[in-house]
């Protein structure tokens, strides 16, 4: 019900829908306020018992009023109605109820409550064991969970961002505003973040005055000044959700959730804020009292009831009652009276409760029961004068306030119990650089908060080396809090602690009785404090009950651990920017467009995209294209973009010595104009990478790495240069991206090159493994006579700006000569035919010895991995060694990943002698071929073994051969 003349917001009327029904609300007010304004009290069903539930709070701690907003793929579950702002067109649905909120079938659980207490699942679903996975789990999973996801890809936009400041002020209530003002006037870079859409905290929800005027007016004045300061950034709708090391804070900003959908606008932004100092002014959260049936819609926290009235002009009921143990809560009754709303009674547990002429006050009172199936209709009370029933549709309750210490615990500190305020307060120095001010550390009066905000900001400024300005403290209320502990009203029936997880006083007592006495054990046994609200309302009361049940004090019982996030954070916001193309950078070669034009399917190679094959008209399968491309290279000439291979320029007086140390074999004696194959080991003696390195001049080398390991090798070279051999004078630079490099392979490769080079290749001056400068149609480039195909081949490199043009030219010329472009599939077949290695073989667990390259390990010099590679165990003949495999029946499949067994041995793990790493169909040899590792493989050439792939159901007899299946003498490449 709206109350004329109350409320401080002037939002335009907005239509919204709840469970399909259209209502009128005010733009910008929380959905909860709009529902209450429309006299909707039943908002959802509880998790376990499907009890009817309403709105409990007016803040982000709300456990009950969770709704789903939006529709289809963009639907968001578990949206707190107390946080979601109303906008014209908002669509919200209740959760956890079927077929409808008012008649929910699963509410039968509530009838069986005697059997569903704490530990029910653990005790019930134990036997028979075979039912665990097949029966119990599917059923429980179907019933479990709050809300639901569509399962579809989320089409919404999310964002992440980084921010930096001298002082981060978390919370913009009285303390936070003063802290920000103090720091803002000092000139420090300040970020003031608050989870509410409008800053001001309790100033917006209370009727006390600051500076002899309404508190919200004072707050607006401060905010105007802060907004005018260029060194202050205001971040409303931003919840600081986590504290991380070295002054890093996570914060979630609601960007587009409060307005009509705009596909360009992010819904949320996850901020990483780095602050030199921070002041936590997060305030406090009012705690409920546990009494019988305290969970009916219409039972709310006292501060929420007056907040909805004072801030939003909404009365949560027409006949309000109050149940409290402290003076502060009496504000609710007074504010209701001021608004002309009937206060049917104030039940105060103390015998010192303040009296009133406007409503009856029941001292030493307690609420012992409530009635109303889908919403509160009356309560039963007991008090000093007897017992009675009171008709009421809204019971405001207050068990006192819990300071919001959560963020102070994120780095592991535990809060400290304070008997005076009956609350946990932040431990001193809990987070380096973070101070706490105001209600968050138990300073509850407004005057106290204002002063504390100034004081904590001033100390932070001092630590930053800045002078704090003199701030006049405004006049305001300084009322004492006055509270007597009250956690629960004893009696029969169920008194609820954790509304979200349906945990009752009885459950906690039972946990203690079953020896789950540690607070952490109790939490897990009862589910107290789990799920979206993390027990912000209920944890302290629950452990007070536990303390009572175990006969210990609250201080001794302690709290559970508060971990990030403070309130729920969408996974989509955490992962913002990493969906789709944002997941990883895409790297494109200069030939990319031309390859795509040819219809080549592009495959990922690390971050690069490379052509798989180049289909031609009439080719029905990739194999036909691949076989043709292999044939072109073996018979004429093929062209392949190899720009993705890492190219590292190494210069310096010690460049040769550096390479000698990096590679297992020797490079310092390599002559300018020559190229050598090199093997690089890790410190543990296994192979890291291989490739060719060219000597371009005195003290100047060009290293080639595999595509996959280019980044790793660069880091390794930096490691060697800076850590292992810092005395060497050498400079390392990546030139991968500067050069477009193309392999030209096949018997007609020289003929092709001669048609493009300004001077023909002189075969005498340019033998196998030579390199040198060339001029390609007037462009200075480099030519290397190296081969990854086993054919007479070259790699020609030009500055990348010319890559696209040269590629097209090379392909056109190759086609004239009966060849053409070839892709990754053909490249792989060519190298398998030749027994050449890739990271399928250099997979991190293999050594040079295993590869049959042990002879490359120099005995005349030290190199990375030398000592470890010499371990006896790595040189045993029984190790699995690289072999070639050829099926007895030509063309039979030899799938990679298959294991190798003796012909008659059962194909079980213990009998495996090795495995297949690479496989190909060789059109050259008319059969399938494979490379693999086989125990004592080098001594078993000629043996017939059995290859078994259980996953693909393949079993093939094959012959063990040397790794090189085609042209083992290598005459084709050299000739």
């Amino acid at each position, binding site marked *: 019900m709206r109350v004329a003349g109350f409320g401080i917001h002037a939002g335009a009327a907005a239509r919204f829908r709840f469970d399909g029904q259209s209502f009128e609300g005010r733009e910008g007010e929380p959905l909860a306020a709009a529902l209450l304004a429309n006299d909707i009290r039943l908002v959802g069903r509880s998790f376990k018992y499907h009890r009817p539930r309403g709105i409990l709070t007016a803040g982000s701690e709300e456990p009950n009023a969770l709704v789903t907003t939006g529709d289809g793929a963009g639907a968001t579950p578990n949206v707190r109605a107390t946080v979601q702002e109303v906008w014209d067109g908002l669509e919200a649905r209740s959760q956890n109820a079927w077929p409808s909120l008012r008649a929910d079938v699963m509410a039968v659980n509530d009838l069986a409550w005697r059997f569903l207490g704490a530990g029910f699942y653990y005790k019930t679903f134990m036997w028979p064991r075979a039912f665990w996975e097949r029966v119990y789990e599917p059923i429980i999973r179907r019933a479990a969970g709050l809300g639901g996801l569509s399962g579809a890809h989320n089409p919404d936009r999310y964002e992440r961002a980084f921010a930096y400041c001298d002082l981060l002020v978390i919370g913009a209530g009285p303390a936070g505003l003063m802290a920000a003002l103090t720091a803002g006037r000092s000139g420090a870079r300040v970020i003031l973040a608050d989870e509410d859409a409008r800053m001001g905290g309790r100033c917006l929800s209370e009727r006390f005055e600051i500076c002899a005027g309404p508190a919200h007016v004072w707050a607006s004045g401060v905010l105007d000044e802060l907004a005018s300061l260029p060194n202050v950034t205001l971040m409303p709708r931003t919840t600081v959700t986590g504290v991380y090391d070295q002054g890093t804070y996570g914060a979630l900003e609601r960007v587009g959730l409060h307005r009509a959908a705009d596909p360009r606008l992010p819904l949320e932004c996850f901020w990483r804020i780095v602050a030199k100092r921070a002041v936590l002014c997060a305030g406090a959260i009012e705690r409920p009292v546990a009494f019988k049936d305290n969970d009916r819609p219409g039972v709310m926290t006292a501060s929420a009831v007056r907040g909805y009235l004072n801030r939003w002009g909404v009365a949560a009921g027409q006949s309000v009652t109050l149940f409290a143990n402290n003076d502060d809560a009496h504000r609710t009754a007074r504010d209701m009276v001021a608004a002309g709303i009937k206060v049917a009674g104030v039940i105060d547990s103390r015998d010192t409760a303040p009296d009133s002429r406007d409503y009856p006050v029941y001292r030493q009172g307690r609420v012992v029961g409530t009635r109303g199936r889908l919403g509160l209709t009356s309560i039963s009370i007991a008090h000093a004068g007897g017992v009675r029933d009171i008709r009421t549709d809204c019971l405001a309750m207050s068990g006192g306030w819990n300071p919001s210490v959560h963020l102070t615990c994120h780095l592991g500190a535990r809060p400290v119990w304070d008997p005076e305020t009956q609350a946990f307060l932040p431990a001193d120095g809990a987070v380096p650089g973070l101070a706490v001010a105001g209600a968050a550390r138990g300073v509850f009066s407004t005057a106290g908060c204002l002063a504390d905000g100034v004081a904590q900001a001033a100390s932070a400024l001092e630590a930053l080396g800045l002078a704090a300005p003199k701030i006049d403290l405004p006049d305001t209320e300084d009322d004492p809090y006055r509270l007597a502990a009250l956690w629960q009203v004893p009696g029969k029936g169920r008194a609820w602690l954790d509304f979200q997880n349906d945990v009752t006083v009885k459950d906690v007592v039972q946990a203690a009785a079953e020896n789950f006495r540690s607070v952490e054990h109790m939490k897990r046994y009862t589910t107290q404090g789990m799920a979206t609200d993390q027990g912000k309302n209920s944890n302290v009361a629950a452990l007070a009950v536990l303390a009572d049940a175990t006969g210990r004090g609250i201080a001794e019982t302690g709290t559970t651990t508060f971990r990030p996030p403070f309130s729920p954070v969408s996974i989509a916001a955490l992962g913002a920017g990493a969906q789709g193309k944002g997941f990883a950078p895409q790297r494109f070669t200069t030939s990319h467009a031309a390859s795509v034009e040819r219809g080549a399917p592009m495959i990922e190679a690390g971050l690069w995209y490379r052509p798989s094959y180049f289909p031609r008209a009439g080719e029905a399968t990739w194999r036909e294209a691949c076989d043709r491309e292999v044939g072109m290279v073996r018979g004429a000439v093929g062209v392949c973009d190899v720009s993705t291979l890492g190219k590292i320029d190494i210069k310096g007086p010690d460049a040769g010595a550096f390479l000698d140390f990096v590679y297992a074999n020797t490079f310092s004696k390599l002559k300018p104009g020559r190229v050598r194959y090199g093997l690089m080991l890790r410190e543990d003696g296994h192979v890291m990478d291989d490739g060719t390195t060219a000597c371009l001049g005195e003290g100047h080398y060009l290293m080639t790495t595999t595509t996959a390991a280019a980044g790793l090798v660069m880091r390794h070279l930096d490691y060697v240069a800076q850590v292992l051999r810092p005395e060497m004078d050498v400079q390392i630079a990546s*030139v991968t991206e500067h050069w477009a490099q193309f392999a030209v392979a096949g018997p007609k490769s020289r003929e092709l090159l001669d048609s493009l080079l300004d001077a023909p290749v002189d075969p005498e001056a340019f033998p196998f493994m030579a390199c040198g400068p060339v001029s390609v149609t007037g462009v200075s480039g480099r030519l290397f006579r190296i081969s990854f195909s086993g054919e007479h081949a070259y790699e020609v490199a030009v500055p990348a700006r010319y890559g696209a043009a040269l590629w097209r030219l090379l392909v056109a010329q190759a086609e004239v000569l009966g060849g053409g472009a070839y892709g990754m599939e053909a490249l792989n077949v060519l190298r398998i035919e030749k027994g050449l290695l890739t990271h399928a073989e250099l997979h991190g667990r293999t050594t040079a010895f295993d590869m049959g390259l042990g002879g490359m390990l120099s005995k005349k010099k030290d190199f990375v991995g030398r000592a470890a590679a010499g371990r006896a165990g790595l040189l045993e003949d029984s190790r699995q060694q690289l072999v070639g495999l050829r099926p007895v029946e030509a063309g039979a499949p030899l799938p990679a990943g298959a294991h190798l067994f003796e012909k008659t041995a059962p194909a079980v793990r213990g009998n495996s002698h090795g495995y297949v790493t690479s496989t190909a169909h060789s059109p050259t040899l008319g059969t399938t071929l494979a490379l693999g590792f086989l125990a004592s493989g080098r001594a078993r050439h000629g043996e017939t073994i059995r290859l078994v792939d259980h996953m693909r159901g393949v079993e093939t007899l094959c012959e063990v051969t040397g790794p090189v299946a085609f042209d083992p003498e290598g005459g084709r490449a050299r000739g």
Partner: protein
Amino acid sequence: MVDLIALTPCAGLLPLTVGNLALAEVDAGPIHLIAPFRGGQAATDAALSKALGLEMPGPQATTRKGAARMLSVGPGQALLLGAAPPALDQAAVTDQSDGWAVVSVTGPDAREVLMRLVPVDLHPGAFAVGATARTMVGHMTASVTRTDEEAFEIIVFRSMARTLVHELSEAATGVAARG
């Protein structure tokens, strides 16, 4: 004999305007990595100074003289852009002219947009005109340089030009939509 046509890294991708942000490819001219050998810093600076009127910048800094400019990219390493290097016999000089995509990001929202992508404080108080950082743009390693109050220059690997443009325009779209 045919001529090979040269293409720039961002050919077909830029220029682009999103909201009040302008993205454009920068023709940086020749780009060389200059890294003095041990004890060669002074001689290198002297040679650069004589030929081009500038020296190597210190960490996180840039130097400039006319079209020639240098930006620090690592300890003892700087990129020289806009001019061919003189003969430097005490430094490793590596031609990277074709290895980098150079993009200018200009407009009132330039910093707001880069705050979505770059994990470095770009506030003018911490990152003044002429400051440079080796850092990341999204998942890409990059050099970010402030060239003016509302202008930055981003340098990434040439092969990542398309991703850079995508990331910048996505971030700019979100910032612009905030209005």
